[in-house]
């Protein structure tokens, strides 16, 4: 566990408590300045935080995947135009306008990265985890995707091809993982329960047990 108030995975060099406290003070001061100058409304800031902490997250993506598993028409629509299909399904404000769903098959496993910054499909997966934004993943996913998958404990069949999607524009990618065997009679809700966040990034597979 990193110390509280510290996203320690991004970097090797340590920060002592006083340095962090100074940063916290600077953050607080900046919010005061922006508020006093009339640029931000603190209530709107609270709402933005609430959105990403409680409203958007991988549960949305899991619902999309589960529906694609049970509904061939939705699956086809999702792969043809994910933004339209997802807006029709979830029914909230438009998701990222340029959402693209990429489907895992027995031959090809998909992995999504943003080597240049931290592009991620917020509207269906929420904010990215620290590791997605951190340097080990950003640097290695495009040159050593199998090594990255090994860091996650994921081993693919030896003849699998790996396709890495580097999110270099405003297009955003969600992986449609393969439906695990033995789930043929499951309900959509139960299926959604085994769709992990990482399985929709490509660094995991749907859990065998809910």
């Amino acid at each position: 566990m990193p110390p509280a108030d510290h996203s320690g995975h991004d970097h090797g060099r340590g920060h002592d408590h006083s340095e962090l406290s100074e940063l916290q003070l600077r953050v607080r001061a900046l919010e005061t300045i922006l508020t006093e100058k009339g640029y931000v409304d603190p209530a709107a800031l609270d709402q933005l935080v609430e959105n990403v902490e409680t409203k958007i997250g991988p549960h949305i993506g899991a619902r999309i995947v589960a529906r694609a598993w049970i509904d061939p028409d939705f699956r086809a629509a999702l792969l043809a135009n994910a933004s339209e299909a997802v807006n029709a399904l979830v029914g909230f404000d438009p998701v990222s306008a340029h959402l693209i769903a990429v489907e895992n098959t027995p031959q090809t496993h998909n992995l999504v990265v943003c080597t240049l910054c931290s592009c991620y499909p917020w509207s269906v997966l929420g904010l990215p985890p620290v590791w997605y934004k951190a340097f080990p993943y950003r640097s290695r996913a495009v040159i050593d995707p199998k090594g990255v998958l090994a860091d996650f404990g994921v081993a693919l069949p030896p003849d699998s091809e790996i396709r890495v999607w580097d999110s270099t524009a405003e297009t955003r990618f969600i992986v449609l993982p393969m439906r695990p065997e033995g789930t043929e009679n499951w309900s959509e809700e139960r299926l959604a329960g085994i769709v992990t966040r990482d399985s929709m990034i490509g660094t995991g597979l749907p859990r065998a047990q809910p």
Partner: protein
Amino acid sequence: MSNTVHDMGGMHGFGPVEPEPNEPVFHGRWESRVFAMRVAMGAARLWSIDGGRASLETLPPLTYLTSYYERWFNGLERQLVKHELVGEDELAAGKSLRPGRAVNGKLSLAAAQRVRGPMAPFERPAPAPARFQPGDRVRTKEMNPATHTRLPRYARDKAGVVEAIRGCHVYPDSAALDLHDENPQWLYTVVFTGRELWGEEADPAIKVSIDAFEPYLLPA
């Protein structure tokens, strides 16, 4: 700047990926405030999403290589000073010393209730037909602009195949410099073999794609 440390695809030495079990959305309140301030200041409409990215990429390398939200905070301060929203003296004083300047918008609570991510579409009417079609062989340009670009170094001067056309989008290389200079360009998914990118020792089972704007591409 484009050849800065942010362009890290293919670099060695950063160690293993370390997933954190049951990771919280934010590691401390200050991170959540930095996140919210940065998103909210987008409503001022003084810089584009790529202008914001450029503010991070132009941080000194050792500042860039801190944690994510430290980077966001330092980049935000620079943007605010650059666009004369906040003075260096005010940052030093930790308080406002004069009224704010005019901006082009402010995120209201009602708008924040609708914000779920960067939703505004980046697609624009096309000024010309697409130069390439799916299946076309292309080569990315060798280029090293001193300003922002979204063509990573590892994918420059590489042979690939156009897999899909993604529409005509705001061109980051222009919009990073001037919010109003959208200069729309066709956007393509271009796929490369691992061996083309990394040499003959690379795993033949790997393919990597980028989404590349038309000015990055030449016919091959």
